[in-house]
């Protein structure tokens, strides 16, 4: 019996080492702008997969046990930092320079990579994305949620001071979009069928707490970076704190189209216009 146990353990280790792999990725820090729901362009920065700017910092999907081998290039004109929150060291990247980051992810979860320099300044300005470590064969959706104050973005990129204790955001976005454009983002808009298992990966890279309410369904908390004791709770409203990540499992029991939105209802506005904020719908077919 003892010998059998030893053989089993060796066997598992072998399987694990065979399945684990290395993931090679590159990220490019680029300063540009983001378009608000009312068509104003405000200064913004993001990580990009190539040297061509998009507002969306890429989602990096890997399996547990994988090693992420990452080159981060700073294409901005000022120094930036890079870190995987709560996991990696903090790397300094001079303008025009690059760093190599290697990180093993042993556990399933959802992690934020970001620029922590002068926190929250650079993270607030857009330099934050997510790393999803998930071994399940399920349909995944991804929300990088945050808020914006247009004047602050302009002030910050011009090296002016802002009063972080008096933050009043005016725009509320999921993956950089506000209602009604969130539903056009196939990564954000949750779709599926009754009986399927759907995972929603949420990273709050903003400065405000967002309290996301589901119509039509309860969901189960599968992972919380900030509140491990919340795992297993089945709820319809999910607070997500700044720099917290949350993974939810939804198993739709009924068809229909139902809203999901921040229940701080001020966050459903965009520059004070309702309902141009953090509002989307889940669409479930029979």
């Amino acid at each position, binding site marked *: 019996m003892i010998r059998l146990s030893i053989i089993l353990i060796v066997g598992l280790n072998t399987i694990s080492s065979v399945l684990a792999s290395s993931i090679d990725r590159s990220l490019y820090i680029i300063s540009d702008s983001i378009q608000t729901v009312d068509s104003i362009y405000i200064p913004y920065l993001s990580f990009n997969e190539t040297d061509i700017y998009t507002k969306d910092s890429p989602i990096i999907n890997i399996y547990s046990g994988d090693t992420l081998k990452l080159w981060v290039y700073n294409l901005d004109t000022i120094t930036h930092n890079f870190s995987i929150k709560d996991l990696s060291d903090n790397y300094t990247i001079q303008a025009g320079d690059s760093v190599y980051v290697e990180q093993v992810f042993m556990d399933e979860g959802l992690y934020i990579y970001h620029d922590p320099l002068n926190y929250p300044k650079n993270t607030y300005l857009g330099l934050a994305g997510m790393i999803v470590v998930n071994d399940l064969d399920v349909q995944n959706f991804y929300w990088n949620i945050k808020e914006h104050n247009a004047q602050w973005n302009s002030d910050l990129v011009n090296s002016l001071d802002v009063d972080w204790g008096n933050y009043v955001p005016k725009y509320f976005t999921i993956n950089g979009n506000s209602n009604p454009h969130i539903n056009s983002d196939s990564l954000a808009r949750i779709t599926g069928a009754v009986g399927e298992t759907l995972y929603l990966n949420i990273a709050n890279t903003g400065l405000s707490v967002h309290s996301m309410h589901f119509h039509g369904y309860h969901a189960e908390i599968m992972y919380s970076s900030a509140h491990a004791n919340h795992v297993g709770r089945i709820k319809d409203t999910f607070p997500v704190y700044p720099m917290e990540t949350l993974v939810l499992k939804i198993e739709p029991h009924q068809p*229909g*189209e139902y*809203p999901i939105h921040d229940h701080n*209802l001020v966050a459903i506005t965009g520059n004070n216009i309702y309902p141009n904020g953090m509002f989307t719908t889940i669409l479930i077919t029979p």
Partner: protein
Amino acid sequence: MKQLFYILFLAVNLNATAQDETTFIFSKMDIEAQHILWDDTPTMLMGFTSMMSSNIDIPGPTLSYFEGNSVELKLRNMSQGASHTIHLHGLDVNQQNDGVPHLSFEVGHNETESYYFLAPHPGTYLYHCHVTSALHVQAGMYGLIIVKPNTGINETWEGGYTFDSEYAWMSSEIDLAWHEDSIINSPHDTTSMEFHLPDYNPEYFLVNGRSEQQLTEDGIAVVATANEVILLRLANIGYYGNTYHFPMLLNARIISSDGRALPSIELSDSLTIMPGERYQVLLQSTYEIEEEIDLDYFNLNTMEIANTQQIPVSISGYFSQTESTLGKIKLYPNPSSDKVIFSKEINFISLFDGKGRLLITKHNSDYINISNLAKGIYYLNIDSETKTIIKQ
């Protein structure tokens, strides 16, 4: 042919008997400010009432059902302008009955429509209007839905926790700028989805529409006896975060959220509830307490506490003694205004108030001096055993 008719008849009959709860509710809007805030400021509301002639109050009437009830909730809109809906927050009803205007239906002025649903898991839920929801909720269009188990006893859910009494507190805020006639009574263009709203800077922080000295009202202030099990139903319909601070001696146990039991009970003297969330908490004190539960309202952008409300808690049932015995140690007098004397020297003495704050420590003494304390009930820990003393 005869057999077919019989089957159809049965089906119609079953459908009729399944409808076992009908509730009528009215949506209304104030013509002039009538809701009086704690400092006598009147404010104008939109809201729900259970009778057409009733003044609007916040929250609206509590809707109570038993698990499994088949409910018809009729909404009669008497608001003179805006369309309204009822969103059954947390009940997971089907799309048709979800109360979101462009995805189900809205109820125009002078119209009556019905929402149909089965009362689900026992727990605490909300309802609110989902038309221009940021405005209509702030205006007062919200209330609680309570679903109880069909067990005939005070029980959280079948096989759950029994309790002796219950309180339901719905927290919210009021920003008077949002209640100005130009905002709350603005033209209602049902063809437009967009609506301009002011910045949100609330001045009033409410529990069941009340604050400050109004929190002593029946139904808000907790009045109970020692060992009584109290169920708190807590809901946040505001746009700020809430943190409740429970006196340590209330032994708060957090048991459920959003209509579902937590995987495990959590013992905590504080609980944060964000907009749209609900929690159920059990309180039970073995001591007599005259304290308050503090409720912080904090800004979700800055996390700064904007206001703290205090909900009185009075737990009676303690019988005063002029001389008390703690194991083999006697202490006297109790109540006292000056010193409490022990029958022998104590290695370590610590004294706490009702919130668990440590006020006095003393080593190797046969007395403590409490003359500097305010009148009240305090908790004495003598060599790891606890005793209540009263300051006269």
